[in-house]
């Protein structure tokens, strides 16, 4: 199990090179761009990136500027997995026909939670099922932030957004967050992992692994969003830690079907510690029943995860 002594990724091995230039237009304390920068440090220069429409695209590519030091293409909102599939298919056939030099290039698709779990789910499912050799990264900030904090299917229960507002009759988002990890796992792809920029070494290890595995890999990055979640921009990393420490966002991987919890938590903190600092949950603070349901769900998921990991 995860208590076994495992190799720790040494900080000094982290690439000093930046692949995402500063000067972009992300908000102060943006957890998404923090994850993105670390992920590209792990991936290095030999990548081609396809991006969905969304915050990361908008903050990085206002013509004639770009933050991208690696080849990058944006086409539309819902099709990034298909574009990446084309890049992969193109590279494969061109290298086979000796029209491009043989060289390992990691193909990366990136999207927000909307571009992954809602409008982009079909293209993603198709690309995973067909087995393209690529990494799909979901930058999950739990709402459509680029268009002004509308709910997505990855917005957690109770969170207030502009289309799941807290009101007299409704306590924010009325349904549970969709389980993208399970959806990815149902495609039997070789590598699936959750990551958080609050745990940079864990993130780098997993992304490196994803890059070296043949076939589709799915990386789900929790991306704290200060304006969308209603926290101070200095709290990003702390909140990302709380998400893990409370069990709300466990860090784990599924490698060829084997589960492994990569950051163990001896005793989960109460979920209130995570919910309380965020304005999007302010209206549910006194709804003890709802908090109890959330707590139970988190606890159960965590137990199940550990059991799966123990079986592996």
């Amino acid at each position, binding site marked *: 199990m995860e208590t076994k002594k495992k190799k720790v990724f040494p900080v000094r091995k982290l690439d000093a090179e930046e692949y995402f230039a500063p000067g972009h237009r992300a908000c102060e304390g943006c957890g998404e761009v923090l994850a993105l920068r670390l992920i590209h440090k792990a991936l290095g220069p030999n*990548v081609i990136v396809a991006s969905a429409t969304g915050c990361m695209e908008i903050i990085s590519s*206002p*013509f004639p500027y770009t933050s991208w030091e690696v*080849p990058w293409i944006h086409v539309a909102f819902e099709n990034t997995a*298909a574009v990446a599939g084309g*890049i992969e298919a193109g590279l494969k056939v061109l290298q086979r026909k000796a029209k491009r030099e043989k060289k390992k290039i990691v193909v990366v698709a990136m999207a927000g939670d909307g571009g992954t779990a809602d409008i982009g789910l079909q*293209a993603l499912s198709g690309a995973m099922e067909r087995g393209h050799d690529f990494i799909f990264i979901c930058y999950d900030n739990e709402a459509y932030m680029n268009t002004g904090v509308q709910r997505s299917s990855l917005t957690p229960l109770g969170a207030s957004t502009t289309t799941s507002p807290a009101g007299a009759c409704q306590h924010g988002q009325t349904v549970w967050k969709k389980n993208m990890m399970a959806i990815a796992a149902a495609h039997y792809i070789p590598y699936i992992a959750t990551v958080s920029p609050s745990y940079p070494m864990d993130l780098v290890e997993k992304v490196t692994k994803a890059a070296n595995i043949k076939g589709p890999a799915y990386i789900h990055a929790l991306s704290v969003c200060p304006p969308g979640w209603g926290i101070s921009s200095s709290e990003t990393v702390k909140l990302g830690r709380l998400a893990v420490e409370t069990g709300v966002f466990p860090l784990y991987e599924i490698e060829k079907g084997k589960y492994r919890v990569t950051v163990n938590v001896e005793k989960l903190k109460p979920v209130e510690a995570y919910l309380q600092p965020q304005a999007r949950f302010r209206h549910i603070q006194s709804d003890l029943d709802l908090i109890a349901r959330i707590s139970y769900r988190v606890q159960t998921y965590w137990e199940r995860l550990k059991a799966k990991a123990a079986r592996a």
Partner: protein
Amino acid sequence: MRNHQGMEVSFAAAEAVRLCNVDVVAAYPITPQTHIVERLSKYVADGKMDAEFVPVESEHSALSLCIGSSAVGARSFTCTSSQGLALMNEIVYLVPALRLPIVMILANRSLSGPLSIWNDHSDVMSVRDTGWIQLFAENGQEVFDHVMIAYKIAENENVLLPVIINMDGFILSHMFEPIELTGQEAVNTYLPSYRPRFILHPDRPVTMGAYTMPTLFTEAKKAQEEALLASYPYILQAWKDWGTLCGRVYHPVETYYTEGAETLFVTMGSIGETAGEAVRLLREQGQKAGLVKLRLWRPFPLEDFLREIGSAQRLIVIDRALSPGGPGGGPVAGEIRAALYNRENRPQVFNFIAGLGGREVTVGSFQEMFVSSVSGKASGYQIFGVRG
């Protein structure tokens, strides 16, 4: 004697794609396009074509995937019809904007509803303003030839735009026709391999698909239109070179019996052959009828068109799509009327919406249209042969 082989036009189209040594094919099945992709996937399975055939989960992904493959430098092909084109519509606009030379065959079929799998031009009219070069083929040989021609145009460094080859669903796609196949060596000479200057490559990183603010969007659109207009001489050149190679010569506007004609039919696509037969018979009866066929739809060959209609008094424009609630008639007639409006001695324009959703258009139909136009009975536009 030239070497013609009888084959279904869809298979001839697939054969042309194979001869073009296409690297990536991504498509989703829809009637009447299916035979093309089925044949291509078989070629790949049999090792007769070294390509990646990607059986995507939708047309939206088909074109998106071609964007990805084209952006890394792979010669990419897709084909669709009707609902498939409607589903990929969002992405259709992006290909010219990204200046990627993708070729798409459109087996023209009506757009639902009601659902109909049969032929008309409502699908292609829905992408009129997307910025693609758009060509119409009249028979199987033209479909075959234009696959090579389309890549030749699209990949020209001075063009770098995608091309749609329109071929009428069923009427062409499922027809058995004698096709003169061009040999591999001749195709290789005509169409060298695609060597793009800007691709996604880690050694020379570029950003593709950046967005613009209002300060630059208009200029970006102007640049796109200029690129489309500037493609015209290279289209002519591609046709000329093909003519030198195979002896079949194509023009943006094809004519038949236009000399001395007072009344000209204007058609696009396969009904041109039927219209031609009607014109021949009308001439036999001493009528001054003629025919002008638009092969090139975008960029619109206005000067060629004006030259070819000469001083005809009447144009009978056949539209294969309706523009409901518009100021008068189908999309083609609307454009021709607008183009003629400021000209002196402009001809009268009659407009028949014909052959919607597979409705037959016969030699007799053209004769009827001719009589009602010449006698002055027709006016504005009418849906030919409609009941009720």
